[in-house]
């Protein structure tokens, strides 16, 4: 598994905030927290393309096959 470098950590912290923090405008807003199709975001996994996650899920040791890793994100619509 890829080592998480300080630069990775900084980027992941930022992206985690973009998708999981900030004001949630309720009612009329469409919230698409994880629906960003080219990236899988969050501190729970290494930042990776969805394609990578999907291909990793096909074999042992892939990113998505890690215990606790959520399934690939739905696409934003």
């Amino acid at each position: 598994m890829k080592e998480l470098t300080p630069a990775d950590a900084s980027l992941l912290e930022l992206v985690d905030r973009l998708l999981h923090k900030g004001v949630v405008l309720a009612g009329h807003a469409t919230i698409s927290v994880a629906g960003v199709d080219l990236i899988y975001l969050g501190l729970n996994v290494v930042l990776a393309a969805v394609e990578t996650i999907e291909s990793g899920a096909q074999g042992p040791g892939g990113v998505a096959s890690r215990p606790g890793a959520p399934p690939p994100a739905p696409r934003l619509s």
Partner: protein
Amino acid sequence: MTLLAHAITGEPPASLDGEGLRGRPLRWSGTGDIGLWSTRWDPADKLDRNDALEHHRLVERICAAQPCLPVRFGTTFATDEDARASLSTQADELHSALDRVAGKSELAVTLLWAKNSGGRGDAPRLADPAIGPGRRFMEERRARYAAREARKARAAELAECLVAELPVERALVWHEICTSDRVAVSLAVLIPSERAAERKAVLERLAGRFNDVVGVVSGPWPPYSFVSIEQSGGSTPRPPTGSAARPPKGSAPWSPS
């Protein structure tokens, strides 16, 4: 066309030069004494990594111009009227949140387990060949659980040490522990923007004094982690997902100081 929301500010809107996402015009939707900055967006256009980072840069620009509340990335409104209506229903809460974060920025501290810290909870494999497969499985599982608990305890201890020495009120600190195999502590601090450089240096010193973790201090950023608002009115908000759905562990919820 929809509106892709970036940030909420008070009236009057600052005169912001430049463009919104992907070179499209920034748009202001005002209602009463509050409003939303957004970009007109074709729903057929998929958002990608660059859009997320560009949204961040836009929010930084807006926050530099006037107090602002970053909106969660990916929030869209069908029309200008929808955006205004959503703001109107929560105007009081949004104003309070704006007052709380005015002139403040966020610094992030991440403590990563050091390579040889043993902090990742890897359980040693039993070498005794006389042990049968059933007992081996149970023993290894027990060792794994014990290692995981030890890791959580150490992460909580690290977080407590860090929070205790931070030169800010606890109410202005938010943290989680063990957010991944690599991360021991993820922490956010709300600080006065004009003292960001000074506070960042202090945090780097504090985060760098532990032997079993590597400290990374990021920011200053807009106050993403400190803008949650109490929902009011009859509408039922969609529950947040991801880390936002997890209550802060061991830290006091943010409250106005």
